[in-house]
C-alpha cells in the first residue's frame, strides 16, 4: 500500500501531514502507541526539513511518500533544502544535560527520530534532499 502528499514548506501544514499519516496507519495492525510514535518521528523529520532545510520558505514544497509492506513502514521526505549530515550527527549524539545547560530549543527532534525508527538515512540526489525512515513491523 502506498500514498503520497505534496504540501507547502510551512509549519502550519504539519497538522495536515499528521492527519494524512494517521489515516494511512489507521487500518494497520500495530498498537496505537506505535502509530503515535511513527507519526511523531515523521513529524520531526518534516519540521527539520521545513525549518532548517528550507527556512520556512512557503514558496517551496515538500513531498512525503509512504509505503507499507508486511514487514515494514517506510517514509521518504523530499525537498530542495540544504543538507547537513555533520550537523545532524552532532545533534543526534548531544547529551540531554548539555541541551538543558545550553538552553537549546532544538536538538531533541533528531534524538526522537533515531530512538523511534529502525533505519534513518539522509541523502541528496539530483539537487534534492531526502530523508528516508523505516520502521520494522513486528
Amino acid at each position: 500500500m502506498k500514498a503520497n502528499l505534496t504540501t507547502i514548506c510551512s509549519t502550519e501544514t504539519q497538522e495536515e501531514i499528521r492527519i494524512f499519516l494517521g489515516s494511512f496507519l489507521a487500518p494497520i495492525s500495530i498498537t496505537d502507541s506505535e502509530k503515535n510514535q511513527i507519526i511523531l518521528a515523521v513529524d520531526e523529520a518534516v519540521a527539520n526539513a521545513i525549518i532548517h532545510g528550507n527556512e520556512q520558505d512557503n514558496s517551496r514544497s515538500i513531498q512525503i511518500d509512504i509505503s507499507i509492506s508486511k514487514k515494514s513502514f517506510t517514509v521518504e521526505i523530499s525537498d530542495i533544502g540544504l543538507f547537513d549530515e555533520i550537523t545532524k550527527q552532532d545533534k543526534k549524539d548531544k547529551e540531554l544535560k548539555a541541551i538543558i545547560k545550553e538552553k537549546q530549543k532544538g536538538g531533541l527532534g533528531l534524538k526522537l527520530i533515531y530512538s523511534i525508527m529502525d533505519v534513518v538515512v539522509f541523502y541528496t540526489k539530483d539537487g534534492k534532499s531526502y530523508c528516508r525512515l523505516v520502521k520494522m513491523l513486528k
Partner: protein
Amino acid sequence: MDIVQMHEGDVLDIVITGQLDANSAIKLDDVIKEAIKQRKTKITINCVGLSYISSAGLGVFISHLDDMKSYGGKFVFYDMSESVFSVFKILGLHTIMEIVENRGEAKMLMDEG
C-alpha cells in the same frame, strides 16, 4: 492550541489544550518567558487537553528549566495522557521533569518546595 493561565495564590496554572508542535510552541514560549520575567516560582502545567507534543513543545520547557531553577522556580506537569508521557519517556525527560497524576498532587509538590 489554546493556552489558559489561571492564578491561584502564588501558583500559576497553565492549561494547554490541543497540539503542541513547531507551529504552536512559539505561543507557549511567550507565556513561559513572561512568567519567568515576573519571577513566578510555582508553575503547574495542566496537560489534560494536550493531545500531542513534539520536540518543539518539549524544547520550550527545557530551554527555560535552568532559568526557573536559578531563582527557585519549578514546573510540575499533571493529568498527562499516556501518549504524551511516552514522548517524555523516549528522551528520558520523565526523570528530569516533575510529572504527577493530578492537580492535587501538583499543588502538594509545590507546597513541599
